[in-house]
């Protein structure tokens, strides 16, 4: 699998188009919510495919992100966050930056792969806020962006640290002598 980003050509604007603190917070919140959704989905997939180790790991990651999501809402306080529709997003890429890339999932994947996935997600989130810091429309936005950016940086560090515990699996990790099955 190539290491390039899940971004590619998108017609949607990037974070530089975010106009207000409320909009920024709404995006930050969606980032976490989508991340939760993805990790849960991946956990489900791994459960269905009998990869229980990974199911547990993804479930745990989902838990972390859920915690972050809650935090953002708390920190937003009484600010009324706009409800974003898919056409309102300003990711500058296909997906919310912290959403794990579903297309990279594999039923034989190892914790190393999962953490690589998480790492790329955190890095994308970092890049998103980093860009916002550069293009923030006002100081308050900039302040929030910096805070989020630092948090993501911290997450990147955490995941990197975790990764040291898991060696990269052998090249043929995805090889499966069992053929796919014919259904229906």
């Amino acid at each position, binding site marked *: 699998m190539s290491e390039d980003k899940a971004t590619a050509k998108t017609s949607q604007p990037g974070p530089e188009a975010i106009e207000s603190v409320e909009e920024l917070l709404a995006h930050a919140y969606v980032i976490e919510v989508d991340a939760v959704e993805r990790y849960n989905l991946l956990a489900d997939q791994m459960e269905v*495919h009998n990869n229980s180790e990974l199911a547990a790991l993804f479930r745990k990651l989902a838990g972390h992100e859920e915690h972050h999501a809650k935090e953002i809402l708390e920190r937003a306080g009484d600010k009324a966050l706009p409800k974003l529709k898919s056409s309102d997003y300003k990711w500058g890429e296909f997906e919310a930056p912290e959403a794990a890339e579903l297309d990279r999932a594999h*039923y034989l994947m190892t914790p190393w792969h999962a953490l690589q996935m998480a790492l790329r997600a955190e890095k994308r989130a970092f890049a998103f806020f980093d860009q916002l810091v550069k293009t923030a429309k006002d100081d308050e936005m900039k302040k929030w962006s910096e805070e989020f950016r630092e948090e993501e940086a911290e997450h990147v560090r955490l995941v990197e640290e975790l990764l040291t515990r898991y060696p990269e699996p052998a090249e043929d990790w995805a090889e499966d*002598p*069992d053929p796919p*099955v*014919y*259904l*229906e």
Partner: protein
Amino acid sequence: MTAGGFLLEAAARSGWFGLMTRSVGPQIRGGEAAALLRFSNRRVDVPAESYNILFVVDWLNFDRFSAEIHLTPDTMVIADPDSGEVPEVVVKSGARMFDMPVKQVLGAIEGGRPNMLATGVVGGIIGLPIDTIYELIQDNLGSKGEKAVNSSKATVEAGYRFAETLTDAPALAEPKKSDKRRWIITGNEAAGLGAVRGGVRFAAAYPITPGTEILEWLAPNLRKLGGALVQAEDELASINMVIGGSYGGVPAITATSGPGLALMTESIGLAVAAEVPCVIVDVMRGGPSTGIPTKSEQSDLNIAVYGLHGDAPHIVTAPNSVSDCLFTTQWSVYLAEAMQTPAIVLSDQFIGQAKIVIDPPADIAFVGKRLLAQNIEGEYRRYAVTESGVSPMAVPGVAGGQHTADGLEHNPRGTPSTRAEDHMTQMNKRLRKITGFDYGSHWAEIDGEGELAVLTWGSCTAAALEAVEAAREAGIAVKLISLRLISPCLPDAMAKALEGVKKVLVVEQTHSGQFANYLRAQYELPSEVRSYHIPGPLTIRPSEILSQIQDWS
């Protein structure tokens, strides 16, 4: 190759026979899967009643297979104590549990894989020569480089070492070697080979489980014979392509399963009326509707025999074992060509997908030979009324043989007609073709004598045969009659086969007893008839049939 494949081939190379089936979960890939193997020193055509050895990679979703994998107190279960809780059904079976630190062993070998360990453990227990397995590894993984070969060998060896530690292990009887190289083949492959042996050189295909493999076997191999396979847009197209190819004089086939057969019936009726030979293999799966595509059932008997609209006599055959798929398909091509009518071959998921070791099959004489009209002089009458009912067929290219094949009722020339006389004449002719044909002894396999006869067909045959043999050993005389020709019926042949028989036990894998009803409708049976019919997905086991026999004796 999977562990099952390695073991089957290693056993075959060492002189044993064997049978392998697979069972899988609903996931497309990466789901739970089980390979079920049975070895013997004579041919085996039916899965084991219960298993001697269960090697477990993990217990996840084992329940899905528990109905298929019978364990007894004799069974050796080898599993990693870390691979999860042992399912209740396993505990209850009283099987002997052997702990093996699978993960740990694999972890210690670079590139160590569960399939190789399983191969080693099971190979070790049953006493397959380790060198044969090494040979196989070399043959199959050699291209991946020495490292892969060595790690596989090491893993297998670890398995053998573990096997040595086990006590009271079951061992295989002495192998029976043979001069000729044995074959490993699935029923679907055998059907493909049978088709081309029978003369098929054209096929049309629309994939469907579990018939696809026949088509996938034919795709490259027909080309090698100068023939062709076309992938069609749907089954309506594939059956009509087959009719078109055959109208051109080229014996033609398609393979499908129940839903596809249902789509084809209108046009199979066309082949009946227009008298165009063709062969349709229906690899049956659980019905109705989409049903259970990955599991076996014999419930397409009704549609195969009765599923065409109008009175449309045609041929229905059924292979009675994995290897018989070769003979029956070849024979069906021959029958279809000889009688210029469609033949439906009822195989099923079990015999289609099971892999088996067999002695190389003999060359059979049946090759499709159509009665052709050549050197035509005067008015050509495509549907001329003949004694046999078969009319010489002109194929395109033959001068003077121009005619229009028609699904409308017609007169002998082929011109549409609504006259009662033409209708009756052509109906009689089309029926006579197939009821008056000499099918020889192939219409059924008949074994033994007795006042009680087991009457069965298709993939139930092997189980019935084992049951009958067991009954004989227990002193009960039982006759076995397994029909290979399902339709038309041969009342005289059956009457002869039933001479002296007072009781008939009909065995089949359906919910409604389709075969029993069909026999009742079409044959004179002794007054005492019992019907043992169980739908899929589980294959009927010899012991079930045996207990039916015992109950009734």
